[in-house]
């Protein structure tokens, strides 16, 4: 399946932009996977830039932007480039926030809800399984025939929370994209690593062009690491943007 997807994009590639905030630490991993593993066109975007270098897809990577001070993502949200990212998203541009990038998207109001400290109070670093709840989005369409995706998490504040009305709304609009589950795709409390409400691991905005998820697809994309499910997300995204 992955080969088929790759051949669909041929030599064409959308241009990915990986934003670098002070304290980002998954920016190079993401860049490496997009460039070296997937052969996509990719550039870094420094957070003080005020243009997006004509990128087609913007990625806010994982890390600890501004030391996670005050609240995770709250200060990065005011980096100069975020004005451009917000304008780009509002025009329908595709934005993917991974881990700290997801937290930045929440603080920027591009996605609903907030992140609380993990229920256990521990920083949790391990592999998890995700069930795809909506495979009709640009970020998931084409990932077929999998009970679950195996990705890695590494966070202290991934306990997704939103008020009842917001939860109802995102559920009704199919905005919940990933839920923590067992390897067989069964959603249960025991597979919830951080206390997230409804086992939520990733959500999308109403318009379907901005997605955030806590797990790290870039850490599960290189076959030498023994896990490649993460690459599916980047592959289908590129494929769906081109077609």
């Amino acid at each position, binding site marked *: 399946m992955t080969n088929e997807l790759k051949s669909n994009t041929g030599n064409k590639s959308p241009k990915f932009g990986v934003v670098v905030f002070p304290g980002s630490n998954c920016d190079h991993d993401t860049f490496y996977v997009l460039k070296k593993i997937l052969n996509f066109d990719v550039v870094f975007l420094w957070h003080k830039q005020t243009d997006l270098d004509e990128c087609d897809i913007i990625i806010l990577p994982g890390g600890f932007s501004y030391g996670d001070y005050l609240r995770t993502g709250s200060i990065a949200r005011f980096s100069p480039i975020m004005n451009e990212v917000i304008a780009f998203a509002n025009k329908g541009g595709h934005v993917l926030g991974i881990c700290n990038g997801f937290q930045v998207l929440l603080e920027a109001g591009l996605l609903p809800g907030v992140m609380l400290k993990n*229920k256990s*109070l521990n920083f949790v670093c391990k592999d998890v399984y995700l069930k795809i709840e909506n495979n009709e989005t640009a970020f998931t369409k084409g990932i077929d025939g999998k009970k679950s995706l195996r990705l890695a998490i590494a966070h202290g504040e991934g306990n997704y929370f939103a008020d009842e009305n917001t939860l109802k709304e995102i559920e009704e609009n199919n905005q919940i994209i990933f839920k923590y589950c067992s390897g067989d795709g069964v959603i249960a409390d025991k597979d919830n690593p951080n*206390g997230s409400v409804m086992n939520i691991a990733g959500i999308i905005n109403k318009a379907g062009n901005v997605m955030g998820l806590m797990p790290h697809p870039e850490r599960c994309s290189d076959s030498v690491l023994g896990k490649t499910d993460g690459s599916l997300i980047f592959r289908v995204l590129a494929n769906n943007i081109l077609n």
Partner: protein
Amino acid sequence: MFKARVMIKRRKTILDPQGKAVEIGAKHLGLNNIKNTRIDKLIEFDIDTNNRKAAEDEVNDYCKKLLANPIMEDYEFTLVEVS
């Protein structure tokens, strides 16, 4: 010039796992009457204006846009004039 003290509190309905963990310590100390420990934020700063209204507006702006997240937190503040 004013000195501001901003207290940012998480809504009561939102779990505070830090407070809960600390309270376990209280139990271990034998302080059995301690209940509902919450860990919040106290932020202090100066505002370089002599106009109280302008100072209040700026503190509100700072709190609403950055210091507090209105989805999960409330804030209150005091302003003390200093020379």
